[in-house]
């Protein structure tokens, strides 16, 4: 348990670092709200009892000061409403602020070079898990910290009030509140750890199987496995239902526990105040005050119930996300080449992915010149994409040395984002104005298409650039390259998925835009390699041949590549 709580530390530290005062303010208001409720009931009980006793004779009735207590009751009623309103506003505002900060910090954490590469190798399902984790952390403050503050504040005040009647009563009630009020949620949290984890796993399995069912339906129906997949989904739902049931059983237990603890405290206080009154140490009004205060004392602790049950999930999330909350280290910038005229220089580069049986790259030595176009060819899995990532400084080396000019890497699935065309372009150059954007679009051959759109640059793109044809999407990424304006372009299969005519047009535009840049193209199709000054053939992570334009081998290598 204590080990599990270690994982919360970076999250709590981040929360406190972000908004210490607002966090405290929200918790304080929550405590005030609960206390005002307790005080309202206690004061009312005292008032009624005192007036009843004073009302027995008309002399005392006239002498009784009614205005202070009745004003107090009204004040507490109004104050409770106001502090409740304030509490809800402050706590929600803080939660939303934390949410904003958390997401920004996490994005930066994942955007670091090592983490980014790790993240990209994880399947999309894990990305969904990630948002679920963030949501679980969001609830830490509202579900755990705020109710905790309110409950502890109440326990302290209730114990103090009862201690005024008799120290032992105050001490006993305080101890009971802490024991039952905190003990039950802690016990529940502990017992809920395993089912909460099982539930998280079952929910992930459910989602993965649902995605497999809908996205893989054709494969399943053709394999005669559709009914089996439905059964697998039902199985995951059953596992989720079982853990739901286990959690609910714990919740029910806690509910009964609180009810019992409250009944014990209430009847115990009743007996204690009766005994104290009999001994003449307190009057009936004080006894009424004590009982009514005890009546509401456990209520705020019940607010911890939900947070306690979800704590397992929260800890789980904190363990996975916590490491990304640390302030990010600056990205290592690969050194620029020392020799003028060289765009990139690699010496004895070896890359082996974690856990892989063989190296992705073995002993790569290579020099790329400014204003040179190089095509890296070879079968899939030869290490072409890895080589581009190495030059771009995206992945670390197992051995060897790399120097390179600032580079822009256009990956196989170069992403367009769910955003306006303008903001998709401005990723490459945030300072660019519309005229510059249109100029870049013009050189990528997309200007006319964009001008024909009713919303122009305001047009929103859907998931994976939905709304654009394959050719348009490629031209858009080309326009981004132009805006980015680095001396080294690294392109991974830049015309994949395009028909021949479109692909040739994109390649021609690419050449026009490249001008004095060094361009490296990883490819297995002829149309992309044709324009190169030099061909580099890779197999099994090694360079097996190179051929310059004009050399005999050049045409041979080209001929071995795939036509459209």
């Amino acid at each position, binding site marked *: 348990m204590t080990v599990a709580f270690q994982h919360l530390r970076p999250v709590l530290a981040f929360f406190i670092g972000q908004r210490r005062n607002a966090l405290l303010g929200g918790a304080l208001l929550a405590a005030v709200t609960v206390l005002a409720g307790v005080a309202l009931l206690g004061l*009312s009980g005292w008032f009624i009892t005192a007036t009843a006793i004073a009302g027995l004779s008309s002399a005392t009735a006239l002498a009784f000061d009614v205005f202070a207590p009745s004003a107090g009751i009204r004040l507490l009623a109004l104050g409770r409403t106001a502090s409740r309103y304030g509490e809800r506003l402050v706590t929600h505002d803080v939660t939303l602020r934390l*949410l904003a900060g958390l997401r920004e910090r996490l994005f930066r954490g994942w955007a670091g070079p090592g983490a*980014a590469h790790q993240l990209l190798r994880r*399947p999309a399902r894990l990305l969904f898990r990630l948002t679920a984790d963030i949501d679980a952390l969001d609830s830490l403050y509202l579900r755990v910290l705020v109710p905790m503050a309110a409950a502890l504040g109440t326990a302290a005040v209730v114990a103090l009030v009862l201690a005024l009647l008799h120290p032992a009563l105050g001490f006993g009630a305080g101890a009971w509140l802490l024991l039952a009020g905190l003990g039950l949620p802690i016990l529940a949290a502990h017992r809920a750890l395993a089912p909460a984890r099982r539930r998280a796993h079952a929910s992930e399995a459910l989602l993965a199987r649902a995605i497999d069912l809908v996205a893989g339906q054709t494969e399943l129906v053709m394999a005669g*496995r559709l009914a089996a997949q439905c059964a697998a989904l039902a199985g995951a739902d059953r596992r989720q239902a079982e853990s739901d049931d286990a959690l609910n059983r714990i919740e029910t237990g806690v509910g009964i526990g609180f009810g019992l603890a409250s009944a014990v405290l209430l009847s115990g206080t009743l007996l204690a105040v009766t005994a104290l009154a009999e001994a003449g140490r307190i009057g009936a009004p004080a006894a009424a005050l004590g009982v009514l205060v005890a009546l509401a004392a456990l209520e705020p602790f019940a607010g911890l119930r939900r947070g306690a049950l979800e704590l397992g999930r929260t800890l789980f999330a904190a363990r996975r996300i916590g490491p990304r909350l640390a302030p990010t280290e600056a990205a290592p910038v690969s050194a620029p080449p020392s020799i003028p005229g060289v765009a990139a220089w690699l010496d004895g580069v070896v890359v082996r992915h974690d856990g892989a049986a063989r190296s992705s790259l073995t002993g790569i030595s290579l020099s790329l010149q400014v204003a040179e176009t190089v095509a890296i060819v070879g079968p899939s899995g030869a290490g072409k994409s890895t080589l581009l990532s190495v030059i771009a400084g995206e992945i670390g080396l197992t051995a060897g040395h790399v120097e390179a000019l600032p580079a822009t890497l256009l990956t196989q699935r170069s992403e367009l984002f769910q955003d306006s065309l303008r903001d998709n372009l401005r990723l490459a150059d945030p300072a660019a104005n519309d005229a510059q954007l249109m100029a870049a679009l013009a050189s990528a051959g997309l200007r006319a298409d964009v001008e024909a759109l009713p919303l122009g640059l305001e047009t929103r793109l859907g998931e994976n650039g939905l709304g654009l044809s394959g050719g348009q999407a490629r031209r858009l990424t080309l326009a981004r390259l132009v805006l980015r304006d680095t001396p080294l372009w690294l392109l991974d299969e830049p015309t994949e998925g395009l028909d021949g005519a479109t692909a040739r047009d994109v390649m021609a535009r690419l050449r026009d835009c490249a001008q004095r840049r060094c361009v490296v193209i990883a490819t297995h199709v002829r149309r992309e390699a044709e324009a190169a000054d030099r061909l580099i053939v890779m197999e099994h992570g090694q360079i097996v041949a190179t051929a310059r334009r004009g050399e005999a081998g050049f045409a041979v290598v080209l001929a071995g590549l795939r036509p459209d």
Partner: protein
Amino acid sequence: MTVAAESLPAEIAGDRGSRVAMLMQTAGALFWLPQAGLIAFIIGGIAEGRGFREALLPAAGVLALGVVRTTFEALGARKAFLAARASLSRRRGHAVAALAAGSPLDRARPASGQAASVVTEQAEALVSYLARFGPARFKAMVVPLVILGAVLPLSWVAALVLLLAAPLIPIFMALIGWRAKAASEAQLAETGNLNGFLLDRLRGLATIRALGAVDATALRLRANAEDLRARTMTVLRIAFLSSAVLELFSALGVALAAVYVGFHLLDALPFGAWGEKLSLGEGLFILLLAPAFFEPLRELSAVWHDRAAGQAAIAALDDVSRGGLALVGGAQADREGGAVASGAVDLRIEGLRFCHAGSGEAVLDGFDLRVAAGEHVAILGPSGSGKTTLLALVAGLAPADNGEISVGGTRLGPESAAGLRRRMAWIGQRPHLFAATLAGNISLGRPEADAQGVTEALRIVALDGLAAARPGAAIGEGGAGLSGGEGLRLALARGAANPRAGLILADEPTAHLDAGTARAITERLLAFAAGRTLVVATHDPVLAARMDRVIRLDLERLEGAA
């Protein structure tokens, strides 16, 4: 109250367990009345000078009633939960069955990610709605009335105070309901958008890093979240204000009752108790009941959030469960049948017509085709000419509008579809990668695709090296872990793992492959297709040239007639 008339879903409203749960929780709340009576009696006794001994029995009663009350409430809530959770499983099952039976050619069906999220995450909102809303509403209708009935005989003024504070509450309830719904919907949608934004950017992290846009994107994310906060707070300020009014009335109701009783006991307000004077015990009893009078109303307003989310979940599930264009034979027809013959089968298509719903132009119309058993045929045609649709219709993935398809002399129909599919091998254009190992992705759990068959299939498509390099490793969804070429080889292996297949349907099996791999795949495909019938839709002239016959889909009438 308008909510009083609103009906819960039939399976909850008509469920005996749910009704018992509702009654138990309400009864639990009502046990507070005798408990409060005993508390008031004990304190009243203190004022009258009764001693400790006389308080023992009533205090034991307070304890016992407390135990009964909490047990009723907790067990009632548990019963309600069980009914609601069962309802979730049932509805989920219906939606899954509908998704499974729907045709992949149905353009109106929800996007796969969205449907999956509706069935899994969104559907969960159902439980707290069904478990909590019904009991809370019933309690809100019964408990305040009973309390009023208990207070009225003691003091009509106190009853009037409660009654006056309460009727205002429904008005605010409506307000709150409306506002809270708007607020929760807005907030949910916006938080969803924010998560969507983050996911979208994380997926494209390579691009963002390549463009040096990490900082700009992080700031954008921050600005979006801040914007969300500002807008949500505007809504919440009003939503919370209306719930604050509810709080205010309940607090004022308690305060006014207390003040009235106090002044009454001082003889300052000597009226209101039917000509009598209240005793201290009676006064305290009224005070103790006052908060309980408002509590169910506050509880009802608290579950309003659940109600909005739950109703949205029900609507989304109903939407997914609505049947559209269905698979031929539906989803349940693929149970294990008897022995299936192996060997090549012929294919006959006559007068085939298919038109997407809402689209005026038919993709295929009056299409005829005869493929002899063991013949290899390439279907050529530009994108959108219906190659993929044709293969899908042969596989029974959607019913044809008109015409007839026969495989091996058996006409494709609801009864025969599942059996015929077991004689087909499907090699899709964009194979889905399941969350499983490579071997699991090939066998797909088919009994006929055993370990040996999978190994053989891996060898046929030359993926055995990859399988050996990463044994037991899961290949993720969305293609992470496999290149495009490897994915297509996987699809081929899936087909090859069915040794009984007599008809192979392949959709662009060599697209996006390098020349060497395309050549290799062509050879593997032909080797697998030897002695089987093969229909392949393709752009690849090299592959088409290896077939016995080429059919151009844009000229299909001429070719088909030949």
